[in-house]
């Protein structure tokens, strides 16, 4: 009997070790391709806490530069953004973030209010795979799954990614147990320039009201921040597309006023900020490039210093050490990307 138990334990251990290894091998690494997939997990490698946390979709991780906020204002910040992050994913990320730290300000980009239902498995994966296993992750998965998805595959990603067996590359082995840093405190840098031309006007919608589920999650966010003494700031990033309707704007303004929240629509402030869509966007107005993001961050840093309880931490040794390293990496990345971009556009 003892021998049987020993054999079962031995083979059980071999099975589990093999499954762990296979999971690690088959998970997409997002190192050289679709770096957006690596953003969520990078947060867990942060060494210090932050005063400002940005939460939202590409309109935050492409448009704000935490490094500039540090360099010019001494504000420590991090972007917990990911591609097409839906509002319930933002909520659970917020809840999870509050397990690790209590920032002074949470900044939430409201574009995701337009999505009242789960959208796409691919984006769900980019948003959720990187989260550590926690009640928040499980709740986010449950809220996000499309009909074709299985809950189990979020616990054992091999069930989802096993079909990659004929796509595995050296990168999958190289990054089996580690990852490079692809962002700068959650900011995904892009230095290319593609001016915004012929931005399409929004086509009329049958119904401009946001889905009840979105309002519920926005309420939960406001309640959560209130409970933790965190100031919630709602923003609409200055992206020209997807189109932001006046009717949507009114609803958010009313909501912010009702809940006593700050709301900034950067689309209305582009002149004041100095964003020039002929030079400050890398994809014709959908997202800002590095130069646009720095302009926006400069304006927002000033606003934060004036309106929120954030402080200049540049003189604090523990923060300065970490952030100076981050700044050096930021500068190196900027230099490298600019050289690559000039190589593509010698003129």
């Amino acid at each position, binding site marked *: 009997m003892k021998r*049987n138990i020993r*054999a*079962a334990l031995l*083979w059980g251990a*071999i*099975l589990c070790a*093999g*499954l762990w290894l*296979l999971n690690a091998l*088959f998970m997409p690494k997002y190192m050289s391709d679709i770096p957006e997939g690596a953003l969520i997990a990078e947060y867990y490698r942060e060494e210090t806490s932050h005063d400002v946390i940005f939460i939202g979709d590409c309109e935050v991780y492409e448009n704000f530069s935490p490094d500039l906020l540090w360099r010019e204002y001494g504000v420590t910040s991090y972007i917990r953004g990911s591609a097409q992050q839906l509002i319930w994913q933002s909520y659970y990320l917020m809840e999870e973030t509050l397990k690790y730290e209590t920032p002074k300000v949470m900044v939430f980009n409201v574009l995701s209010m337009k999505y009242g239902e789960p959208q796409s*498995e691919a984006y769900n994966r980019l948003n959720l795979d990187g989260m550590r296993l926690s009640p928040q992750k499980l709740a986010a998965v449950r809220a996000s799954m499309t009909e*074709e*998805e*299985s809950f*189990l*595959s979020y616990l054992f990603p*091999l*069930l*989802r990614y*096993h*079909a990659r*067996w*004929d796509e595995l590359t050296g990168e999958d082995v190289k990054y089996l147990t580690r990852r490079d840093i692809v962002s700068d405190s959650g900011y995904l840098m892009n230095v290319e320039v593609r001016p915004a031309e012929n931005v399409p006007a929004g086509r009329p919608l049958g119904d401009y009201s946001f889905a009840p589920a979105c309002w519920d999650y926005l309420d939960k966010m406001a309640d959560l921040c209130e409970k933790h003494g965190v100031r919630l700031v709602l923003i609409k990033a200055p992206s020209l597309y997807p189109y932001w309707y006046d009717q949507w704007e009114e609803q958010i303004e009313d909501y912010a006023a009702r809940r006593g929240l700050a709301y900034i629509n950067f689309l209305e402030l582009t002149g004041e900020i100095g964003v020039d869509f002929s030079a400050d966007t890398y994809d014709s107005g959908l997202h800002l490039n590095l130069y646009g993001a720095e302009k926006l961050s400069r304006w927002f840093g000033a606003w934060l210093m004036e309106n929120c309880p954030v402080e200049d931490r540049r003189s604090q040794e523990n923060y300065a050490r970490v952030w100076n390293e981050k700044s050096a990496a930021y500068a190196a990345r900027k230099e490298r990307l600019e050289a690559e971009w000039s190589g593509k556009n010698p003129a």
Partner: protein
Amino acid sequence: MSFASTQFLAFLAALFLVYYAIPQRHQWKLLLAGSLFFYWFAGWWCLIYIGVTAVTTYFAARKIDALARGQEAWLREHKAGLSKEERKAWKARGKAVRFRWLLGCLLVNFGVLAVVKYTNFVIGNANAALSLLGGGQLPSLPMVLPMGISFYTFQAMGYLIDVYWGKCPAERSLGRFALFVTFFPQLIQGPISRFGDLSRTLYAGHSWDSRQIAMGAERALWGLAKKLIVADRLAIPLRTLVADPERYGGVYVLAVIFLYAVQLYADFTGGIDITIGVARMLGVQVTENFQRPFFSKNAAEYWRRWHITMGTWFRDYLFYPMSVSKPILKLHQRCRNRFGRFGKRISVHTCSLILWFVTGLWHGASWNFIVWGLLNGIVIIISQELEPLYDKFHARFPRLKGSRGWDLVQVLRTFWLMGTIRVLDVYRDVPLTFRQLGTVLTGCRPGTLWDGSFLELGIGGGDWLVAAAGAGAMLACSLLGRREPVRERLARHSPHLAWGGCVALIWLILIFGVYGIGFDASQFIYNQF
């Protein structure tokens, strides 16, 4: 709840743990509860159908058994006072009463099967006839086939006939009999077990036996690997090939014949491996349903080795009784008088054709299956009639018989012949099937095999390699397991090999199985029958 689903895995794990934790005398009750839950999962209404079969068969069998015992006892008591003729008449009267009970129960159960399975087929044919005559159309009825009805009905009716023939006693407990009918591993695609075989281990208490459990798990995983790695992978190009027959004729039809043979084998034997493996993990021995069928040298042998329990069911409960029935005996007499030696065989061939007609009909309510069944019967009859010619041929070339080369020729001939008939399963209708088979002769372009066209059928080169490796592994196991299954042989060397086999199979299934987003784990093909 498909065998290839996470729900089934969760259900099995829970049942398995409780099964070995409770007192052994209650294990069969747990199996019954689990089986009913498994069946309920397919739709609560399915329980009504299987309930009717279980209850009517149980009471009919009990009645027949009681009548037989009562009649025997009465006869023993009054034997001295009765003449031989009176005893004979008494026996005949008793048999007639028992036969009426048998017939009633058969009519109810086969009637239910016929109504749910064939009503719309009959309506479809009636409509075709009416449209020829310029008449109106009958509406088809919203019939849903209860899961496994063809299998459990045949299993229950086999038991009833055995009781009627006095081959086995009627089961006294309704619960135990219900378990025989509903036992979940074999409920959806067989095998069609005999009461005498299954009951030996079904109701007994089973203590934990690591070796049996490991061997059972390994067999179930092997079955799952066949299903998910080979069958479901080949299903993708097959769907493409069959969906557009205009485009995929000629050499593609040969590919359909070959690929469907491998897919069906992997799918059906995979399902049966899961059935037998799961039952073995629970200590229950289920009858084998396959015996390396693709190594058969002729059609009759093939059918003795493929879906064995169905073949023996039809043989024992249809062919034999039909062969000795009055109308067939009369036919036999008449033909013998009229055609001499050949005439003697007409009645046997007639029974054969009826048997194969019913076998085809059992597989599905469509002309494809009926023609498929009849073609199988015709091939077997022709090969029986040609036997004297074969004998002459072998007398001329005596070294050929028994040689490996000739065996291989026979095996390949049987494989392709059976495969060619089997494509009736896959094409839309009978004329299309024959048209497609015709294109093999008229439009075969062998270059298609190596010009990369097969990489555009829904799976890439890597998938073809995996499918080929899987099929190769199945072939190797068949070749090496002629006397004893490979897994049994390996486990005898070291019990660690059984556990190691399980672990390796789990890894392989998880990596190379066709499941998840973008793939629908296909239903087992035989579930639909």
